[in-house]
């Protein structure tokens, strides 16, 4: 499916299983202090690129507005240009017609970049299990944090942002594999071919009943 993934792996392992990379003890005191400083700076002022399409975008606006006030996270500067953005917040459903646009915007963002998938539709397709909607944006771009909800409350989005902060704070500059974009490795044991994914995503249980048009 042409999936690009950003992984923390060391490709030397025979199974190519993503493993926690490196060993913190190998880093010197200086680099770890520097990491701390850089990560503190990065996480304290992430410029979001709001890819708002539907209902979740309204809740994103509520989060950015007066009561919830994203400025507390240093995020009040919404970067509508992907070139100046740090975190892509995909808020809302993504139909197939929009898929290449989303991917293009992700590609235009400079590294380091992170993605928050806001809401059920962006994360899994949600209630739109039909011909038009991408079943989760992680089939197009890598995602760091998924926010459940339809739409998620502003508190949920803020929790996701704080989770992302934690993730950023554990990153280390010495980790060479951190921001490498790779194509899915068909040789890996973890690779699932698209046909299998199709099979796995077939309806089951009550949803079989729901895909019949008349009783």
């Amino acid at each position, binding site marked *: 499916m*042409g999936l*690009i993934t950003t992984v923390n792996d060391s490709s030397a392992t025979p199974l190519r299983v993503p493993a926690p990379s490196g060993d913190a003890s190998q880093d010197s005191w200086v680099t770890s202090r520097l990491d701390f400083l850089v990560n503190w700076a990065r996480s304290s002022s992430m410029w979001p690129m709001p*890819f*708002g*399409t*539907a*209902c979740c*975008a*309204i*809740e994103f*606006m*509520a989060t950015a*507005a*007066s*009561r919830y006030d994203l400025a507390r996270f240093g995020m009040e500067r*919404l970067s*509508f240009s*992907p070139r100046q953005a740090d975190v892509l917040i995909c808020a*809302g*459903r993504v*139909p197939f*017609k*929009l898929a290449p*646009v989303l991917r*293009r*915007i992700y*590609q*235009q963002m400079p590294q380091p970049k992170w993605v928050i998938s806001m809401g059920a539709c962006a994360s899994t397709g949600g*209630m*739109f299990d*039909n*011909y*038009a*909607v991408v079943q989760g944006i992680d089939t197009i771009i890598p995602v760091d944090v998924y926010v459940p909800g*339809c*739409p998620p*409350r502003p508190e949920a989005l803020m929790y996701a942002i704080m989770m992302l902060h934690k993730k950023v704070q554990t990153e280390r500059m010495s980790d060479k594999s951190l921001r490498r*974009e790779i*194509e899915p490795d068909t040789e890996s044991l973890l690779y699932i071919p698209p046909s299998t994914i199709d099979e796995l995503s077939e309806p089951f249980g009550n949803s079989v009943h*729901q*895909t*019949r*048009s*008349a*009783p």
Partner: protein
Amino acid sequence: MSKRTIEMAVGTAGIDAYGQPIRAPLSVRSQGALALEAPYEPELESDHMLINIGPQHPATHGVLRLVLELDGETVVRCVPHIGYLHCGFEKIGEYRQYNQIIPWTDREDYLNSIGNNVAFVLGAERLFGIEITPRCTVLRVIAMELSRIMSHLVWMGTTCIDIGAFTPFLWLYQERENLYNLLEGWVGARLTTTATRVGGMAAEIPDGWMDGLNAFIRNFPKTLNESDKMLSKNGIWMGRTVGIGALTAEEAINCGMSGAMLRASGVAYDVRKDFPYLDYETYDFDVAVGTSGDVYDRYLVRVEEMRQSIRILEQAVQRLPDGPLNVDDPRVILPPKTKATSQMESMIHHFKLVMEGPRPPIGEVYVPVESPKGEKGYYLVSDGTSKPVRWRIRPPAFVNLSAIPRMVEGHLLSDVIAINASIDIVMGEIDR
């Protein structure tokens, strides 16, 4: 005649997945016109530029894409592209029972979710031949008017941002948060309410809810007046909106405009007055009508509509009767939960209603309501089974948007943003 074309793609040139640069020419010039050997004579009046706005652009209110041909800064032609949020609502409605469709109506015009819930069940109830109770009627009026205010608040806030005023957005969103709290107290959700059921409502209003509503009715006009004072006579605001994107009454009717778009052009067409539902003819309210049909009049009409909604809310609070909320019709209304868990007949009844769904007689209905965007109607066709053959949404914003070439052509590029904002588009409803 030299033609110079500048193409601006969705973004600019980038790197594709394989690390190869994506070719997107930023500047294309025609044969020989700008070549060094040819004498270069600038013919500014013949230079046309192709500008692409969207699909991801903050001022398009979603994922609208506009391709504009510019002569200097003047729009000569406009080709809108939609469908970037097409999610197959109408298809999926054919696979769902009537009560199961209600959650989809939330997500289609998501600024006006509770109004859509009411609009849909009005259609479904006519298809079932159900007359709702007086208390339910008044509660639905309250729901629809709250929803109208909610939608107009977002419209006004985002339009302010588009035209360059940020502060009203913050004030208006504060009021919207108060409305969210009210809805949350009633049905448990802020945005996607699913507040109605065929034959009634999902829930009775909780104790003390009316106090919250009364406080909102008291306090909201203050905020509205402040924003009104800040914008209506503001020189920048008027300079950006007066005389922009005007449509005559005949044009607006012929283009199928509805809602504030049509009323700003001087046609007092309001579904609440012309094809009443929910006893709207018994409420005392005025229909705001503009004169020139430009962006400024649309703004004034919407502000006045919010004031009239407050008037309707005041009357509805006064007349809210006691009595049952749901109709006494076992065909559509579930038995009480306590009975469903203790009596076998009620449990079977509950099971059959949930699993098989209520079945309307063969027929078709189209019931229009006045949504904040204009005339919204649900066209339902039943073949006697528990799922509709066709669930058609008549999208007001879709028809309103289709006239955007007529409105923007001849105006400046910056006016396109103001005109587009004045249509009050919601892509979820346009693309469905």
